[in-house]
């Protein structure tokens, strides 16, 4: 019974994905999917505030706590697979991560209300599979605690766990200006 439900849901999901793919292939929503040129400016937060803590699971259902990343500069991104600008900025996050990941810097992408299977299917279609940490905020409680009202929204958090910059809407995160801001925080 449980398996039947699972297969039925899976079938429905795959059918809908097929419908979406067909629509996108037809170019019906091309205008919706390809939008403004991505900028690179991050807005400094005038009075840095402590980033709210969280514990969330990754794709392998392994738990990660925000405090595990203490001591690193963190680019914290809220996203979903159905969000066109989220998809557009993701390759630049991966390039940034490949370039700066280490003891002092990491990237965490917190997916909103989707499951591992869905995200796995999505990342499998990308030219470069993201290697940064993807966590699942299945009830959007973490995004609410960060007062995220739209996707994507990104925060740059310093080594002490304070929010220092924010960006609403997609960005080119591997732009030299962004790298410069991150390097500066890494050197503090």
């Amino acid at each position, binding site marked *: 019974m449980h398996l039947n439900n699972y297969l039925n849901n899976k079938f429905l999901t795959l059918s809908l994905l097929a419908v979406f793919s067909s629509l996108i292939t037809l*170019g019906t929503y091309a205008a919706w999917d390809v939008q403004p040129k991505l900028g690179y400016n991050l807005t400094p937060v005038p009075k840095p505030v402590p980033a709210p803590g969280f514990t969330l699971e990754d794709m392998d259902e392994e738990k990660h706590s925000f405090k595990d990343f203490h001591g690193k500069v963190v680019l914290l991104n809220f996203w979903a697979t159905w969000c066109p600008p989220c998809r557009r900025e993701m390759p630049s996050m991966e390039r940034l991560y490949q370039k700066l990941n280490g003891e002092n810097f990491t990237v965490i992408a917190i997916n909103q209300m989707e499951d591992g299977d869905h995200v796995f299917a999505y990342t499998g279609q990308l030219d470069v599979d993201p290697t940064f940490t993807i966590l699942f905020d299945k009830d959007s409680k973490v995004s609410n605690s960060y007062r995220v009202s739209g996707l994507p929204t990104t925060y740059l958090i310093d080594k002490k766990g304070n929010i220092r910059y924010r960006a609403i*809407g997609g960005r080119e995160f591997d732009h030299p200006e962004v790298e410069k801001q991150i390097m500066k925080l890494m050197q503090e």
Partner: protein
Amino acid sequence: MLAGISSAANISAQKNEETGLYSWVAEGDGFSIELIQLLPDFIRAIYMSHDFPDAEVEEIAGYCVFGTIIKNTSQQQLDYDVSNWYYTDKRGKNYPVKTKTEWLEQWRKAGVTFSWTLLPDKGTFYMDDWQQGFTTIKLSPESEFTLTYKWSINGIEHTDKFEGLRCAPEQLSEQ
């Protein structure tokens, strides 16, 4: 909020030759807004895939839904509030735009917890900030209307009218 300014945006329309669907962009005084026609079936597919009850799927698919992209094109602080926006139908009657908060309240009562896809009601944008989401207008397919929208730059309110907008058809016409 300081005294308002009536702006005159540059408006451009674009037709997708493949589908016949239209999109419009208005740009002026630090604010850019783009409205993209979306078919009711696309809206149905989106909300069905998020397990919405049938009645809620049909209700929102019965609205005229636009993909909406708003952007701060200034280097200043920009604020907007959709609850100040309204549309005017062909008979000249004004109606408020149904906000995300109003939809979420309705969905919460229907047991829906999904809270994304709609354009957030309010926002404060800085340089390069932008947002994308659905805007809902309670008009039938192919209705024509004017949208009056407001924003402020550094506390100075601007108002503009987006004329000549048209809801998407019920279905794509045969090519």
